[in-house]
């Protein structure tokens, strides 16, 4: 019985820990959409993410950039902004890459695009945005 209670408490603790990591204590949760081929939009979305982290503080804001369609180029491994992406990732900004777009680009390229190490593939960019909105994130499309 004691073992069962211990395991139960451990499960609760693990669950709480996960939720804390997921940013429940953040004051603001923002999802930024990049789906545009315009190169200036890449710079802009990174600037917005950077400004959000600076304004609220790294611990008080959750920022996730969701890239799909032509906007996925932002998360290409050789993108000229890869250094900035590294910096933002170390500040807690997350990057989601749409698997549908990856699949379509793989067809066009003849091979899968090489993505930045911080990019986390998600089943569909637009679905990821809806999920995050349901979790209280505000959608911003710079």
């Amino acid at each position, binding site marked *: 019985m004691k073992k069962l209670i211990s395991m139960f408490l451990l499960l609760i603790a693990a669950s709480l820990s996960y939720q804390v990591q997921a940013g429940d204590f953040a004051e603001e949760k923002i999802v930024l959409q990049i789906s545009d*081929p315009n*190169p200036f939009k890449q710079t802009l979305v990174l600037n917005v993410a950077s400004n959000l982290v600076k304004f609220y503080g790294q611990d008080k804001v959750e920022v996730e950039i969701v890239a799909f369609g032509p906007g996925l*180029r932002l998360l290409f491994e050789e993108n*000229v*902004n890869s250094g900035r992406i590294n910096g933002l990732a170390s500040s807690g900004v997350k990057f989601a890459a749409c698997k549908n777009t990856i699949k379509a680009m793989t067809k066009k*390229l003849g091979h899968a695009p090489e993505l930045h190490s911080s990019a986390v593939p998600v089943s569909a960019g637009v679905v990821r945005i809806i999920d995050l909105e349901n979790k209280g994130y505000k959608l911003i499309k710079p």
Partner: protein
Amino acid sequence: MNHKKKLLVKAIGVGLLTCASAAQAANWLMLQGTEKDGQSARAKLWGFVQVQYQNDRSSANSGDGYIPPKLIGPNLNSQSAFNVNRARIGVRGTGFPLDNKVNYFFLAEFGNNGITAPGDRNVRITDASITLNHIPGARVRAGLFKTPGAEEGLQAIHVFDYINFTTVTNQLLLERFPNSNGSYDAAINNAPIGLPSPTGIGAFDSSVGAFRDTGIQVFDTFKVDNWEHSYAVMYGNGNGLNFGNGDGHYDTYLYWSSELVFGGKGGRRQGLKMFAWGQSGKRLLDTTNDTTYNPESYDRDRSGLGFKYLQKPFRVSAEYMQGKGMIFVGQDKATFDINPAVAGGNGEEGKANGYYLEGGWYIPNSKWEIDLRYDIYNRLTDDTPFPAGAPPAVAGKTFEMNFQTITLGAQYHINKKTRINMEVSDRTFEAVDWDSGAGPNANLDGVSQRYAIQLTHVF
């Protein structure tokens, strides 16, 4: 190959790979020949317009006439004129944006200058190239584009800090090509002529080289800490914008630069850059000034080295250049010979050298910039003298000439894309072996200030 050597080769390979991707778009080679990885547009429309007014205050020569350099180019028919000297529009980018490894660059000239004036062309393609970035450390650019060389020619002209080129760049590097049929009107190689009926001065029938050539170039940039090292090797027709390879020989271009980067980006990035370059080729030229086309092949070699320091509010740069063969000796001398009747004044096999030293001060907290430049060009430095048996007035004399210019300029930056350049150039030109008023000095004595104002807008 032993194990250590294999490791070294691998390390160098990995190093090159790392450097090649890290140093993207950081200098003229990269700015003009590549696009930003993962960020370039399919087709970015861009261009610039330059409108200017120039006024030459030189006085008439002893024959009461005016010839270059007392007339305003490219038309050479007056001493003052408004001009749309550059109006360029182009597109660049990555046609298939998912593939970072291929990009293109296209630009056309609609302005009135040495590119379009010969042959009365309304438009001329100045750049059309494709770059393949597949091989680490060896990007390949093919087509028509700026050749790797002197800073004044290689840099983007819309960020050039002056209106007129230095004399050494204008005469030694901005190539005038031999006329294709070699048939010259004897009257063209003539004495000074007077305003207002100046005909026959512009004797060249094809566009100036515009520091460009059609060919293939291997190049790249490697970043080591705050340094960027770049190289380029090019093989081209040696025919500027004129396409074709009529002389049957190809030109070779070599370039190296090392730059300590202080910060910033694009055409006005701050740093200390040192560079050296060399060009070698041949040209077919008919020097006989008659109606029979009997050309011969002449060497054309150019080389130089220099530096550019830019850390606001200061800029200092200097460059030394030298050349052998195909030395331009006048806009009316398409034979490259000042006087076909004598052994001297021979540009096709002559030598020349020169340098410039210039600096700028960006006035803090203002939109103004002050520029000062000194340049000198020594033309036909090993010219053949008139023989001892010649008349005393000319015996022992050569056609070596010395062109010195001091240019004081100011720039007012209306916004990031629009600026006004103003400059006054004080010129002292002389044929070194001749007394004042004698020989070529009969014309050069009167050369004096030239005033110029130019409005540039980039879009």
